[in-house]
């Protein structure tokens, strides 16, 4: 009996009649999850929660396949807004990091050198282009965008209703919507000039949040697989009694522990520090690289039931397959991790933390 407890205030969706489309179409579920105080839901942590607490919540959200941008809101959008001194809106938030946009200053400075709009009398922007595959855009009250203006990197906010939204989804049918901006004016109070370092810090925050979600989904694979191999009997004994099953199941457990620990190691670090760069790049590389093996073993040990909607395993594995690509896949982060390494810096790099 697998009950897919996700939120409260809306009916609990059981695995027996799991309907992906209905699940995500339920807009109320999304706001409920982020505001609920019910005991079995993953509540959005308070704004003064530590990174470690936020990561724990994100992992739990990943484990329960929470249909809301909990990690995106708590670990990425909110901290970035706070970092630049912009107000933090209520409700679910989302983000777009380094999208390809055409940005001009709305009120060009007369004295500017270069083309019109390369600098402004104030920071009001005119933005054209498409934010691609924005997580949960349709449900977000605000989207935080970090992009490059003629003056350098900027952070600004918009509301999804200011854009033309084209719905999309990932393998788990989590919303990944395109937002088309047609010469959208962003008033100066919603714009902040930021350092290139902060732009990169945003990438790290997003990658760590995604890694925590992956760790949670991996853990769900272990939960479901151990339960299944213990309960399911073939040839007169539980699957877990077969050596061949034990060998695979142990590897699943190991790989999951590995991902979880890599995420855990990054938790206490200041996201702007060099140590965090190493720990986060390693965590996302490991999380993304392990996703394939974790999903493979979980499915193999579930047998046919696992590839159907009769069983909740797909809630975890489809997320693993999507999340490993999102916010930088293992190739991207592995290269970033390896680029500065030399024979003399490798070991000091590995021992930066703890």
């Amino acid at each position: 009996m697998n009950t897919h407890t996700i939120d409260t205030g809306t009916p609990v969706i059981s695995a027996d009649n799991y309907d992906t489309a209905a699940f995500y179409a339920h807009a109320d579920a999304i706001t409920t999850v982020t505001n609920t105080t019910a005991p079995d839901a993953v509540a959005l942590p308070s704004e003064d929660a530590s990174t470690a607490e936020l990561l724990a919540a994100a992992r739990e959200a990943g484990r329960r396949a929470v249909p809301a941008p909990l990690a995106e809101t708590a670990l990425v959008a909110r901290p970035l807004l706070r970092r630049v001194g912009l107000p933090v809106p209520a409700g679910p938030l989302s983000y777009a990091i380094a999208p390809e946009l055409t940005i001009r200053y709305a009120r060009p400075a007369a004295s500017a050198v270069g083309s019109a709009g390369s600098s402004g009398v104030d920071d009001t922007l005119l933005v054209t282009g498409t934010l691609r595959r924005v997580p949960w855009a349709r449900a977000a009250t605000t989207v935080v965008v970090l992009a490059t203006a003629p003056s350098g990197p900027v952070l600004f906010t918009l509301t999804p209703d200011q854009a033309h939204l084209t719905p999309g989804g990932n393998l788990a049918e989590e919303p990944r919507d395109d937002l088309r901006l047609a010469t959208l004016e962003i008033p100066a109070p919603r714009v902040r000039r930021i350092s290139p370092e902060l732009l990169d810090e945003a990438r790290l925050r997003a990658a760590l949040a995604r890694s925590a979600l992956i760790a949670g989904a991996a853990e769900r694979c272990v939960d479901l697989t151990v339960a299944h191999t213990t309960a399911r009997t073939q040839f007169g004994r539980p699957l877990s009694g077969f050596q061949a099953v034990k060998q695979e199941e142990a590897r699943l457990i190991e790989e999951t522990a590995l991902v979880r620990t890599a995420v855990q190691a990054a938790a206490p670090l200041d996201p702007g520090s060099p140590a965090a760069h190493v720990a986060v790049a390693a965590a996302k590389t490991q999380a993304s690289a392990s996703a394939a093996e974790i999903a493979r073993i979980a499915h193999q040990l579930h047998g046919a039931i696992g590839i159907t909607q009769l069983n909740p395993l797909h809630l975890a594995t489809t997320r693993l397959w999507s999340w490993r690509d999102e916010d930088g896949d293992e190739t991207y982060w592995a290269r970033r991790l390896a680029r500065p390494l030399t024979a003399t810096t490798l070991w000091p790099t590995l021992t930066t933390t703890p």
Partner: protein
Amino acid sequence: MSPSTLSPTSTLSPIAFPDVALPESARRLRAEVRAFVDEERARGTVLGRPDSWLAGWDPGFSRRLAERGWVGMALPAEYGGAGRGFLERYVVIEELLAAGAPVSAHWVSDRQAGPSILQHGTEEQRRFFLPRIAAGQCFFSIGMSEKNSGSDLASVATRAERTADGWQLTGTKMWTGGAHVNDYAIVLARTEDAEDKHAGLSQFIVDLRAPGVRIEPIRLMSGEHRFNAVHLEGIDVPDGLLLGRRGGGWKQVTGELAFERSGPERYLSTFPLLVSLLRELEQHSTTAEQLTQTGVLTARLHSVRQLSLGVAAALDAGHSPDTQAALVKDLGTRLEGTLVDTVRSILPTPSDPHATPGSHPELLAFALLHSPGYTLRGGTNEILRGIITRGLERH
């Protein structure tokens, strides 16, 4: 709530790994060890070779390390140790292994014999052995496995018969690393026949130079002489060298497995080969694919190290993380082998045992010839995986 806090319904709860924070003293200690390693490298003793905890035998190095207080460093000061914490010891040994320093002479006395004698030994045994261990002047081997007793250790056939004032040991121990160069071995022998085969086993400290101890080399496929068959031909062992409780051998042996299985030697054995690879890559321009493979390997090393440190923190806190230790050993030792294959793939190099010692092709050959052993020693990985699944199902 911290990230290590698992929801109570999580299947993984029984094998949670604690958060790791090294004591502030560890940072200073790490710098001191690095300075020491640099000095030793300059004098030509630290050669950056793989598997240096098995193959790097240099008693002079061990003694200089001991002078710094870094052998038996977790032993109490009253027995000649440094009274440092288990996590501080971890820092020292991971630095030495990463550098490929020759630590095999004192390895077993530092990792197992010292702690074991401290925990189970008589006061007389502690006073005799521990200061010598901590001084780097007394080296131990492990006498557990036998020809017909590998993973199934409780089936050992070596017998200890009671004599007037001690014991007479008869049997043959196999794979006894360093028995031809070390001073003592801790031997597991059957003292009583029992229905339960885990009962009736006892541990003895055996003088490897005693009459009746015959040591026969078992050469590795590389031709190296590291292991031996140790024939105990009815040797007399006085009562004073029974280690721990008569009949308590099984509990004593299994009690130290978490220490033996989770340390940095379970994932760093081939690390010096990766350092060698990066040195080679510095001569060329690096391709994107080479960077990717190097990064994936580095991420895994980082992640396994965090797990290994997690077990160390649990041990330091007095827990018995046996399941977690088995998990670290399987992941870590598989990584040691993967590292060799990946290094070969990143920079295709024919391995050559006759190339200049320390050159990349020679180190590759050395690591490769040692590689099948990584997932065998300290408990065959297939057996460990059974421990891991059992660890979750029990709850």
